[in-house]
């Protein structure tokens, strides 16, 4: 490893739940998450070189909502801090750059969101083109349904395959104590359930989730001190597609393909994909070029818990943990932001 290398060395998350009693600033969720993340590392909050978060004012219903969350860090005396109004996987990208500049040698990245405070399907309309799309208030499930129909009509997948994704995710989530949804379900039973937004059934859509997660990054020297088998980031790329939904090919995910290619996703043994809708997992697998031998979403994935602005970051933590345990040598984590897989990030890690 060279001096500019960066590794993922820690991960913690709040339980994924339908609703919390807490505030939208996430402080109550974040305090125990930070404690768990730093426990056993020998680091205190004062030792962290850079903090970066992902969250959303529209989700919180208040301006500069991330400022209140900073109380959970202990931000006095002043700290080195930044924020992205996206999934915190993009905050991790910023922290990765920060460590590579040599300015800091540790960074703590966190994301949080209390989706239950508002009406998530309407709130997400705020990320659409504000001129000629958002004024119609298309909701997030309807937009995903348009994407799913395009895939179904063109024969890329079937409703049965979508249900298989949901069933496998729920079965895997039984081994994830933080999952919101889990259990053994029969594909045939799922297909008998009603549509919530034809062609999507409830199992095709991620649940509405409150939650938070945090990931610890370290430079090469610090990483070896902090973990016996760090998850070295060997590729980290993100790409964006047009904001014009009707101008994109929604049955492919070219931004994911480009990011995966640039990050060298070949030969990954485990992939944690941030797919809030069942058909999106199928599109992402094709876009990245993942074969049958790659284990997909052993955590259960976003279909079993989708805390907005933390779920993508959690994929990086979940994938890294497979490297720490020795279960895999090369893993991939994917995060998405925006409607219908508009923006995509791919993080490849190796032991």
């Amino acid at each position, binding site marked *: 490893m060279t001096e500019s290398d960066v590794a993922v060395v820690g991960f913690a998350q709040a339980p994924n739940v339908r609703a919390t009693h807490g505030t939208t600033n996430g402080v109550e969720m974040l305090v125990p998450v930070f404690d768990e993340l730093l426990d056993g590392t020998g680091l205190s909050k004062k030792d962290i070189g850079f903090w970066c978060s992902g969250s959303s004012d529209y989700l919180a219903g208040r301006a500069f909502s991330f400022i209140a969350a900073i109380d959970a860090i202990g931000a006095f005396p002043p700290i080195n801090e930044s924020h992205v109004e996206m999934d915190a996987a993009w905050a991790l990208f910023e922290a990765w750059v920060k460590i590579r500049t040599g300015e800091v040698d540790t960074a703590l990245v966190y994301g949080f969101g209390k989706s239950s405070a*508002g009406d998530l399907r309407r709130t997400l309309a705020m990320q659409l083109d504000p001129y000629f799309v958002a004024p119609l208030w298309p909701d997030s499930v309807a937009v995903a349904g348009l994407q799913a129909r395009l895939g179904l009509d063109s024969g890329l997948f079937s409703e049965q395959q979508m249900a298989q994704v949901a069933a496998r995710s729920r079965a895997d989530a039984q081994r994830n104590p933080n999952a919101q949804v889990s259990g053994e379900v029969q594909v045939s039973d799922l297909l008998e359930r009603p549509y919530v937004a034809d062609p999507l059934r409830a199992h095709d859509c991620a649940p509405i989730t409150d939650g938070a997660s945090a990931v610890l990054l370290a430079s090469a020297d610090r990483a070896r001190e902090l973990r016996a088998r760090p998850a070295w980031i060997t590729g980290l790329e993100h790409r964006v597609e047009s904001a014009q939904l009707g101008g994109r090919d929604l049955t492919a995910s070219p931004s994911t393909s480009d990011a995966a290619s640039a990050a060298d996703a070949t030969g990954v043994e485990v992939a944690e994909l941030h797919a809030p809708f069942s058909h999106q997992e199928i599109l992402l697998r094709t876009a990245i070029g993942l074969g049958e031998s790659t284990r997909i979403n052993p955590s259960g994935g976003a279909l079993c818990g989708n805390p907005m602005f933390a779920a993508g970051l959690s994929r990086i933590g979940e994938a890294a943990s497979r490297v720490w345990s020795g279960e895999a040598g090369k893993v991939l984590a994917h995060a998405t932001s925006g409607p219908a897989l508009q923006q995509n990030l791919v993080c490849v890690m190796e032991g």
Partner: protein
Amino acid sequence: MTETSEPLSAPLEVGFDYTRSLGSVLGRFATALRQRRITGVRGSDGRVHVPAVEYDPLTFEPLDELVDVGSDGTVLSWSWTPQPLEGQPLRHAFGWALIRLDGADTALLHAVDAGTPDRMRTGMRVRARWAAEPVGGIRDIACFDPVEDAAQQAPAPADSDEPVTKLTTPIHLHYRHSASPEESRYLRGLAEGRLLGQRCPACGKVYIPPRGACPTDGVPTEEEVELPDTGIVTTFCIVNVPFLGQRIQPPYVAAYVLLDGADIAFLHLVLGCAAEDVRMGMRVRAEWKPRAEWDTTLQNIDHFTPSGEPDAPYKSYAHHL
């Protein structure tokens, strides 16, 4: 301290009329909508984008060739909405669709009033239904109808030639706002006329309102501390400017008030003396509203007023500025 009751929560309504300048390309697209015409912009590769875009998504070249497209089109994809959400184009169940209008190469997202999902299908033909009073926005298209259902369209109003340069979109979102357990104790205390702070277990500082976590130590504040309703002005400003929603005639004083025994000041009003007489270090006391008007809010204190005691020395509050 153990929290025995649920945190306080209340509805929170957030709303704003977003007003945006449109520029030349989007402005001409909006102007055409008000004339009950749909236009697109021709891309660098000759494809026609609807809605119009200002830059080519492939080459990033600026685009400005507006072309008319049809108000009939073909559904490329659809999803069904059994229970429309607030703000959506129709109040009854409808289909969202990506519609490629005749003469266009990209698809417009809009609603199709098909009645039931079994009338929706990929490839179906639909026609724009115009709103009664066009204003120059996407909602001038009320929705799309299956072509066989489409009624005769009225011509555009005569006064629709003025260019559309701005777009106003009202955005209203609804939340359930929750206070933290610490804030909830403070707010419930106010309803009893008590000022409750909490002390950080690590640094000993007393915060009012108490915090979910001490900003120095990152741990929740815990020990309850009842504070008096007397304190000092640490800093202040004289408000001379009238603004929307103002409750008091300017000039008046908004001040940071540091209660005796607290380590953090809060913002309140200082009345009861001429604005120019307010100063840093001035001793003040709370003027409470009549008890019958109390609620779980700091507005139970109408304002602070000079107590007439000697000013606090600067060094006694310098570290609270």
